[in-house]
């Protein structure tokens, strides 16, 4: 089956076309957040270069968050539009879980981290043992220091991925020697990796219709310091 995967959930934007687990093509940009202007032309060009058409797609995958408010709405709207028009099934995957898939096949811990601003991150924790992934922590929005607390008893290496990886590494590596930065080419969400993460759900038939695809915004905690100083 052919799958079109789209990610616009954070700084980068990408789309990928895959067939039965094989990547046919991918378009990735990491320039700024004007995903609303770039993602559909990217899809258009990718279809052209892979000699495929939209109607040949058997399903659509999209990252459902957490992530940028605008970005999530762009990706979901694009996928909903195409899937609804063609009557094709969809799979939504957590942005953080998608990033953890960069380490498929390894034996390691992965903590995806997205910068949620104001010293907060969206994060989770996963363990890879070969091709088996185990989720050890739910997607959550927490202050960076709380992430540090939650990892302080971990004895093995934890790979940081995501656009908040540098930020977390620099704030926490002194207190947490277990942290390791994923290489920069594995740091960002990639539609090709989303395709891999969504593949299992498609093969098991765990799909949803376009209208049941919903974004997973995470509530940001009112951080330890006062975020909004009201002086009205």
């Amino acid at each position, binding site marked *: 089956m052919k799958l079109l995967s789209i990610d616009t959930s954070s700084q980068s934007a990408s789309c990928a076309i895959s067939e039965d687990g094989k990547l046919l093509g991918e378009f990735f940009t990491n320039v700024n*957040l004007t995903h609303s202007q770039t993602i559909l032309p990217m899809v258009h060009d990718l279809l052209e270069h892979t000699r495929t058409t939209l109607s040949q797609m058997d399903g659509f995958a999209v990252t459902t968050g957490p992530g940028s408010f605008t970005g999530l709405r762009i990706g979901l709207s694009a996928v909903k539009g195409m899937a609804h028009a063609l009557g094709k099934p969809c799979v939504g995957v957590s942005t953080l879980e998608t990033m953890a898939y960069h380490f498929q096949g390894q034996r390691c811990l992965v903590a995806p981290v997205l910068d949620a*601003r104001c010293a907060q991150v969206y994060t989770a924790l996963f363990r890879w043992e070969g091709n088996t992934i185990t989720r050890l922590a739910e997607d959550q929005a927490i202050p960076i220091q709380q992430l540090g607390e939650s990892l302080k008893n971990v004895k093995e290496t934890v790979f940081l991925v995501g656009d908040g990886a540098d930020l977390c590494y620099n704030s926490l590596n002194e207190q947490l020697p277990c942290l390791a930065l994923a290489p920069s080419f594995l740091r960002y969400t990639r539609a090709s990796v989303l395709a891999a993460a969504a593949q299992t759900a498609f093969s098991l038939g765990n799909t949803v219709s376009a209208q049941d695809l919903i974004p997973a915004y995470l509530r940001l905690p009112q951080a330890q310091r006062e*975020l*909004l*100083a009201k002086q009205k």
Partner: protein
Amino acid sequence: MIEFTSHSTEETEQFAQRFAAQLKPGDIIACVGGMGMGKTAFARGLAQGLGLGDDVSSPTFALVHEYTQGSLPLYHFDMYRVNSFDELYSTGFFDYLELGGVLLIEWSENISGALPPNTITLTIQRVDNHTRHITIEGERF
């Protein structure tokens, strides 16, 4: 620090127009000053100075107005109705920080804890009915 005394709406607008020449991509200007201080006049001057025309109105209802027809876009926010971090998130504010334009934020007091450290502060104080004392503070000013 830049200080300027304006004696009319027109002078405020002209001052902002000249000030626009010193702005760079990614600059964030946080306005402090109540209603009727001339913030919209300042915004109009800024837009003119950036070559974005003068059709500028208060973004109180839309939360943000975008002026993107020039080389340096202007994103004009009004945070009067923003009361929580979640609300701020759902204005798309954090996404606008990445766009490489200039952000002008009215009622920035409401989000002061979420402003990046390099934010430029614009204070407009009332002297009398027509006179305003304008102060601009920031790393480059």
